[in-house]
């Protein structure tokens, strides 16, 4: 299934993830995110590219309500993140770059705990199935996560996110540090999940090749602003790379 794109059917629908003039300015005047406009409907995987420090992670944290914007608004499924943070978060799952898990618990226990935290308890059998669905077998799922590779942690992180049955999924560089096979498996799983659940997905990544093959649309950020936004369909990898280098290059020029 790698190489297939998630269904673009959601394009044109009301956005599930919506940023309107979203801005975060730090003391001293530096803007980590500057007037960001973004609309991601259900079923769309939006790839956010950009150099380190471009504002990708900050954008995700603003959409999650982990950071408060200086101005602008972030909406998740129509809920204002600043005004109704709990309701907005209820519709939003998150997989960070380094999936944080309790090291003294198994992947299975972590999944069940985070599901319970979100008031969506999950049975042992359902949790095993959920983990199997993201490519983690029962034997591995029962091991303490301190022994997990990064790829295995990403799978647990994705399973935790999916167990919440949210309408939006935010992924912060989920492919970084994964070997090609693990990255391939992760994108494969993600595409299948999006197709099945029709989630709105925002994925920050440095991996141009995977972004092109997995995402519906791709945006390139620079200095907190979304400079370019193009459909990934029909775009050759070389074209996207060239666009990326040109956009990022202008920043460093």
């Amino acid at each position, binding site marked *: 299934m790698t190489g297939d794109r998630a269904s673009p059917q959601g394009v044109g629908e009301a956005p599930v993830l919506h940023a309107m003039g979203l801005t*975060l*300015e*730090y*003391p001293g*005047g530096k803007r*980590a995110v500057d007037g960001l406009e973004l609309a991601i409907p259900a079923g769309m995987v939006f790839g956010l590219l950009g150099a380190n420090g471009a504002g990708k992670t900050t954008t995700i*944290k603003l959409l*999650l*309500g*982990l*950071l*408060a*914007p*200086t101005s602008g608004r972030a909406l998740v499924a129509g809920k204002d993140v600043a005004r109704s*943070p*709990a309701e907005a*978060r*209820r519709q*939003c*799952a*998150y997989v*960070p770059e*380094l*999936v*944080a*898990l*309790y090291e*003294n*618990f198994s992947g299975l226990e972590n999944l069940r*705990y*985070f599901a*319970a*935290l*979100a*008031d969506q308890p999950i049975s042992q059998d359902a949790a095993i199935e959920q983990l199997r669905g993201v490519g983690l077998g029962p034997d591995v799922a029962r091991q303490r996560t301190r022994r997990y590779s990064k790829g295995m942690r990403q799978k647990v992180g994705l399973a*935790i996110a999916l167990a*919440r049955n949210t309408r939006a999924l935010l992924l912060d560089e989920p492919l970084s540090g994964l070997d090609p096979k693990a990255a391939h498996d992760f994108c494969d799983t993600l595409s299948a999940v999006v197709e099945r659940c029709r989630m709105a997905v925002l994925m920050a990544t440095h991996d141009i090749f995977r972004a092109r093959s997995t995402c519906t649309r791709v945006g390139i950020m620079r200095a907190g602003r979304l400079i370019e936004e193009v459909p990934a369909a029909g775009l050759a990898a070389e074209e996207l790379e060239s666009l990326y280098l040109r956009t990022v290059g202008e920043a460093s020029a």
Partner: protein
Amino acid sequence: MNPITRHEFVNLYRSRTVRSVASVMTVVVMIAALAGLVTQQHQVQERVAASEYARERWLGQGAKNPHGAAHFGTYVFAPVRALSGLAPGLDEAFGTVVRVEAHVRTPLSGRPMASRPSVGPFGWPSAVSLCELLLPLLAIALGHGTFASHDGAGLLDSVRTACVSRVRLAAGKLFGAQLAMLACVGPMLLGAAGLAVAVEPSTTNLVCILGIVLGITAYAWAWTAVSVAISAATERASTSLVLASGLWATTCLLAPQFAAAHAAAEHPMRDDMSFQRAVRDDLDAGMDGHDSQDARLAVLREHVLAEYGVARVEDLPINFDGLAMQAGEVHAAEVYAHHFDAQWDVLAAQERVMDRASVLAPGLALQRWAGALAQTDLAHHRRLAESVEAFRLEWVAALNDALVRGSRTGDWEYRADVELWATVPSFVAPKPAEIGSLMAQAGAGGVVLLGWSIVAGALALGLGVRRLSIRGGR
């Protein structure tokens, strides 16, 4: 149980670091408890044997003038309290034996009372003092990463996005750490308490040891909350660890020493030489039963002669010398009481300084609490010393009375029969204090421990909630 609390508890309990620290601590404290109780039993046997020997020595002294017997003297041995094996308090500082003799009041210890610099710190290492020192380290191991380490690993962001209320999450983390602390120290404390009660079973001992366990638990709670609070206030787990360890070193190692030094400086004890000189000066100012030229003795003599209607002491049907000795003894007792009370008052003033210092160093509050309940604190030693002095006065009065009634004035060759020695009373140790009065004595320490627990808990909760708050830009 709150699932967050349960999860945090299991997470900590599964931690190898926590289990290692807890295991080492349990072994060390249990060894100290066992050694303390064995020593306590040994002391009980030793003092029973010593008391029996002193009594045999007294009874076997042979026919003797009663006043000579009063100078021959005897010995009183301080009773060993059942819980002194766990919390010896000031036992070592005040010693174990008092020589009882006419005209002279000696301190409870073999060492001069005046040489004691201050009331702190308590003896070391006992089970309680080890808990005072080591429990904070376990608390730091448990709590220093609660927020700082989880934030560094991204766990806080993960749980924040799970729509959990900040108060519920912060409370869950705090109570999880507290539960882990309880699981680590509970068996150890109950084990030590069980041993102590088994050694000397009684309701009072049971209540007191449970009180001590409760005090240690409150102390552990306070330190765990402090550790969690520091974790919530610092960015990184390493910073949290350094700060918490620094606080431990300051409050557990330095503060008690500074407090004791400050107490001694603010309320200095009289040195031995000036104490003895002051006592001697006041004794000299009073009646001396051995000095027939003493003017006050003449007044007493006139009074007694008038009472019996005779002109000379030689005509009295009693021994006037015995009356003179007793009158001198009464005066000396007043002088001693004045000076010894002043010394005890200085120690009590020092103890009040230590009580105030315990607001900054909760270990001092634990010492106060445990010492009072184990009856090894200052108040207990003062009560014991005063009861020994009361016994001495009764004992000397009995011997002087025997001299008065058994002989005539000037008959220094008089020898009382050996049967007399058996009629002279033996020392009976004061009964252990009632639970209510022990609780009242322990109150100051208990209030501070409770205060620390509440304030530290509130601080941990408040800082935890703040840590989980959304951070904004400009």
